[in-house]
């Protein structure tokens, strides 16, 4: 069955219809996309303005226009390649109902349809932006012919870059379904990649990392395409290289299409890995000893929470958000070689925030299909809420307390301040879980939602997370303020109060707020679980 335009359009159009309906059902996702578009608009303005000024600069004295033009060409290609790789890996190459589609149409036809959908959603706006940039460049350089030439060159670069990125994603995915080692390492690799990305971003090392790569690609046909823009603007460049670059890049698309189709076939018809299911007990020896100290029903819930988290870490998505706060102090620590002064306080806050978000923010909904059996068990509230609280606290309390104490000792704070902050950390972390329970019970989420386009999981509701984050911030604020260097010194100078007393006051207020909110929330959760009826 050959690839036909009619079927390509049918697959693409249905894919777009499904995506739109999914978005329409998920206002927060829709809002996220709207915000992203809003944030991208200034970038488009900069791009178009930059193209105009680049065109204008060519009419004056530019020392190295060829090198610059090539670097721009490589930049366009690299950016779209990275984007294509991410799109390919995260969504494009995991079509829903693959079995139904592959017993109806060829894998090449399916891939063509998926590309058609991508071309409409992402390609069309990109083409508009590139057209605007090309026109701006032509106006700036005063050469009309530059507009179509730059547009064609940039579009070819973007298309080839995107296809290359998808090709790399296909290679990676093919490796993942064939190599057990790669399959098992994928989470580690992605966490490492994620951390490396932010490390590069926040350490302003983007140029250092991309520089060598751009340097390698600049003297290749990808870079040569940039010279076509120069020629069109009437600047001396090599017509041979410009034409060669355009031919090679366009040829890459022609040659790449069957290659991508072949790779997609290998992926979609692959058997996948029969991963060995662990038959071991869900907890290791140390955890087993800890759990043996807990009442049996609570220990059971803890063990299940930990096992589910380990096997489906995506269900803990909300625990990632607090980590972003730590990026700045971590970068500061890495760059200076000394523990940043703000690190212990921020780690204390983030630790508490994460602890509550781990298992306690959806105490009822998290049960999923098991809920009917759970609510029929003896004293479900004690087991369920106690278990989820223990599951979070047993991880969050020691980890956060130790981290705060260690960072405090290694940092510039006095030992007294470290001691009070450590006590404050215990209070904050201890209160976070109970605060989360009632909020989760009030705003549960029972059904699995799309965490990414290809992954579904039961995660707490966004509203519950926002309310919880707000409350936990209010509770933590006194401890945070009374352990912030500047405020501590200021108060000590003005009121003559020692930092220990000041910190103690902060802990006291946090404890009062935390116990009040936590108790109220916990009791609400308990009442909800005890009185739960399947409607």
């Amino acid at each position, binding site marked *: 069955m050959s690839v*036909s335009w009619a*079927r390509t359009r049918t*697959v693409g159009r*249905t894919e777009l*219809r499904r995506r739109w309906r999914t978005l329409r059902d998920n206002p927060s996702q829709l809002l996220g996309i709207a915000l992203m578009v809003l944030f991208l608009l200034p970038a488009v303005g900069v791009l178009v303005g930059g193209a105009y000024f680049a065109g204008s600069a060519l009419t004056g004295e530019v020392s190295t226009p060829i090198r610059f033009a090539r670097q721009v060409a490589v930049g366009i290609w690299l950016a779209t390649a990275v984007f294509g790789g991410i799109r390919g890996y995260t969504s494009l190459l995991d079509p829903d109902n693959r079995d*139904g589609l592959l*017993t109806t149409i*060829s894998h090449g036809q399916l891939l063509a349809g998926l590309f058609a959908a991508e071309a409409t959603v992402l390609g069309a706006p990109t083409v508009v932006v590139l057209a605007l940039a090309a026109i701006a460049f032509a106006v700036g350089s005063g050469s009309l012919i530059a507009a179509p030439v730059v547009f064609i060159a940039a579009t070819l670069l973007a298309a080839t870059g995107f296809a290359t990125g998808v090709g790399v994603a296909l290679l990676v995915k093919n490796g993942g379904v064939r190599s057990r080692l790669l399959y098992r390492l994928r989470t580690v690799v992605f966490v490492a990649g994620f951390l490396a990305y932010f490390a590069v971003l926040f350490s302003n090392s983007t140029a250092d990392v991309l520089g060598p790569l751009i340097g390698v690609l600049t003297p290749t046909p990808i870079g040569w395409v940039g010279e076509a823009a120069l020629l069109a603007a009437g600047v001396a460049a090599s017509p041979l290289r410009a034409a060669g670059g355009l031919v090679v890049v366009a040829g890459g698309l022609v040659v790449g299409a069957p290659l991508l189709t072949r790779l997609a076939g290998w992926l979609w018809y692959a*058997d996948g890995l029969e991963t060995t299911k662990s038959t071991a007990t869900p907890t290791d020896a140390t955890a087993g000893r800890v759990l043996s100290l807990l009442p049996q029903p609570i220990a059971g819930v803890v063990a299940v929470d930990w096992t589910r988290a380990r096997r489906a870490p995506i269900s803990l998505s909300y625990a990632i958000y607090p980590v972003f706060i730590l990026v700045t102090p971590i970068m500061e620590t890495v760059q200076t070689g000394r523990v940043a002064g703000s690190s212990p306080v921020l780690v204390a806050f983030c630790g508490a925030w994460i602890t509550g978000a781990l298992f306690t923010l959806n105490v009822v909904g998290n049960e999923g299909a098991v809920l009917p059996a759970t609510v029929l068990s003896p004293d479900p509230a004690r087991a369920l809420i106690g278990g989820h609280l223990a599951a979070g606290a047993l991880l969050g309390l020691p980890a956060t307390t130790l981290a705060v104490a260690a960072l405090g000792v290694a940092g510039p704070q006095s030992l007294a301040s470290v001691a009070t902050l450590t006590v404050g950390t215990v209070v904050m972390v201890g209160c976070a879980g109970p605060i989360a329970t009632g909020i989760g019970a009030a705003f549960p989420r029972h059904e699995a939602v799309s965490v990414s386009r290809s992954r579904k999981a039961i995660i707490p509701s966004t509203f519950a997370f926002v309310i919880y984050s707000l409350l936990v911030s209010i509770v933590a604020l006194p401890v945070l303020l009374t352990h912030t260097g500047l405020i501590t010194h200021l108060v000590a100078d003005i009121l003559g109060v020692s930092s220990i007393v000041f910190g103690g006051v902060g802990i006291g207020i946090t404890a009062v707020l935390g116990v009040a909110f936590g108790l109220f929330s916990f009791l609400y959760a308990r009442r909800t679980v005890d009185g739960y009826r399947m409607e």
Partner: protein
Amino acid sequence: MTDEPPAISARKLTKRFDDEPVVDGIDLTVDQGSVYGFLGPNGAGKTTTMRMLTTLTTATSGDAAILATPVSDRDGVRSHVGYLPEEPPVFDELTGREQLRYFARLRDLPPASTADRIETWLDRFDLTDDADRRLDDYSKGMRQKIGLIQALLHEPEVVFLDEPTSGLDPRAARTVIDAIDDLTDNGQTVFLSTHILSVVEELADAVGVLYDGRIVAEGAPDELTAAAEAGADSTLEDVFLSVTTEPSTTAAVPDSNEAGTAGDPDAAATER
């Protein structure tokens, strides 16, 4: 005996995962216009066999063909078959009618006659009133029916059905069973995998029991029951239980080379 090729044929068809045989050298011959009941306990290899025959996965060794088209020719096989997997391949975001129209377009079916055909099937399965509701609002049984219509819409010569009555109420199950029965009247072949033995007893011209990747019993239902140890009163359930309990049961059965031919009433019931 006619010259027409078998609807489904397989020789020494094998699938291994990590060197472990999931399907272990099975031979199959299913005549055109017959219903072949494919039985076996969970994990026996039934779905893997169907996936190999529908080209969704490649065999580690051995050959298989659909109407003489080797399964390595995906395009060729695709044009002959309809497949309803255990989980109906439907899109939650589409309505029932949109889903069927979508797959009809992908099959290049003529729009005018297809629209009538879709309405006929929807009416037959009592889905007309719900056809414009989204599939994520459908019950499991309704989704199953849409999946079945989708598999049959292009009138394939060979239909692979994996648990087609799963999740259906008795009335809906009866509709599906009658629909399957009608397929053979049109000369279509049905390869039916199910755990509901009464459905197989009612519909199947031949039955194959897969156990641990191997076909351990094959033949017409009445011949299998007649040959069973329980004697004349035995049922297909007795046969199933006797051949899928212990691997040693294979020791008491004839040589595998004497395999019966599915759909051929003259073929001897053979256990393997």
